[in-house]
């Protein structure tokens, strides 16, 4: 009788370990498939460059259609930064440094991160749903039957479009945010316009601040497009599978963006 709880415990323990091992195995195979998928996608780059029309179409649906949400969010984020920054800085009589605060937080962090999150929600989810539905309706297999490589024809142009659009969108976000901060700061709250710009220009560095922000957005564009396309390509070809894949795209992209942002920040801005 005394042995029973013990064996039960042992059984639970083995079950738990088995589950853990299974999860590890599936996540590793997924990572492996994802990497293989990425290599295949990248190998199609040249054939896309020969037919830039494919890329242009995707730039339209990935970049141009995200333009509005990015610019409007950038404007509002900049305006809020201007307001909040002014409230804190004016307590110390340092409202002239508002420009530095707005520009530094936008260019270093908020520009790349928030635009990447919006990009994952706006463009990434659409890519996953599109690819997943193509798979569910067997359009991808149909292409293979016609001896057209679906990766080169469908996936690579979308990947390149996301990868190229992301830095442009992040730059737009930061630029419009800085203007929004200026509108609120010097237009509404009475910070001196000249001080706003001159303090900003004196304290922002092109290589340390702006270029690092651009590098961040390039990395985020790469990762977000990869995750979105792979989740779509790897989705279970049912309506439920596609919906789950879309959710996974947004969640995984957000996690990767925030995690990578921390790591990149440590390396880029750690030594000053």
């Amino acid at each position, binding site marked *: 009788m005394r042995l029973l709880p013990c064996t039960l415990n042992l059984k639970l323990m083995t079950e738990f370990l088995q589950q853990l091992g299974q999860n590890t195995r599936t996540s590793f195979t997924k990572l492996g498939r994802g990497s293989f998928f990425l290599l295949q996608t990248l190998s199609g780059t040249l054939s896309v460059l020969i037919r830039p029309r494919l890329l242009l179409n995707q730039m339209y649906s990935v*970049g141009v259609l995200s333009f509005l949400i990015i610019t409007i969010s950038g404007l509002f984020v900049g305006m809020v930064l201007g307001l909040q920054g002014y409230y804190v800085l004016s307590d110390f009589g340092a409202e002239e440094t508002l420009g530095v605060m707005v520009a530094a937080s936008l260019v270093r962090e908020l520009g790349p991160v928030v635009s990447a999150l919006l990009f994952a929600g706006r463009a990434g989810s659409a890519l996953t749903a599109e690819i997943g539905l193509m798979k569910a309706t067997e359009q991808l297999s149909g292409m293979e039957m016609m001896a057209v490589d679906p990766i080169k024809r469908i996936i690579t142009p979308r990947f390149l479009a996301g990868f190229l659009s992301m830095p442009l969108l992040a*730059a737009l976000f930061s630029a419009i945010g800085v203007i929004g901060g200026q509108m609120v700061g010097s237009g509404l709250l009475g910070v001196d316009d000249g001080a706003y710009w001159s303090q900003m220009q004196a304290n922002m560095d092109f290589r340390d601040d702006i270029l690092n922000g651009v590098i961040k957005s390039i990395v985020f564009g790469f990762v977000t497009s990869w995750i979105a396309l792979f989740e779509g390509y790897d989705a279970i070809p049912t309506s439920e599978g596609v919906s789950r894949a879309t959710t996974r795209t947004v969640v995984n992209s957000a996690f990767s963006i925030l995690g990578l942002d921390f790591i990149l920040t440590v390396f880029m801005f750690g030594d000053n």
Partner: protein
Amino acid sequence: MQHTSTQDTFVGLFVASGIVGLFFLALQVSNLSSFTEHDSYTITARFQNSGGLKVKSPVSAAGVKIGRVSAISFDPKTYESVVQLNIDSQYNTLPDDTTASVFTAGLLGEQYVNLEPGGSDDYLKNGGKIEITQSAIILEKALGQFLFKSAEEKK
């Protein structure tokens, strides 16, 4: 799908505005135009104490920025701080008896090197040394001396 030529126009507009955004950040926000490395020459100055001076701190003469601090190191033999100054080569007529001092912009602002030209006819060249220097004023030290002095006077 829209008509392809309108689509092209939109993509073109998008790319152009993205590049304009980047240029705006480079020129208006970080002032890249003044960042471009001019030809410069290096001179060194030794300070007893360089205070809160940092690499990239400005070097100015008569209130005008003429260069940047390029390196700061400690000399273990003389226990001095060795500061290398990168001066724009258009300002190549600094006399060799120029005085260098570490000043603070405002009460709590950043520290910078101020050059006070002397009267010599010889000019500082690349690799030249500034002989006369004045250390940074450490606020705590000055405050301590002041308090000590006023206590002395009261006695």
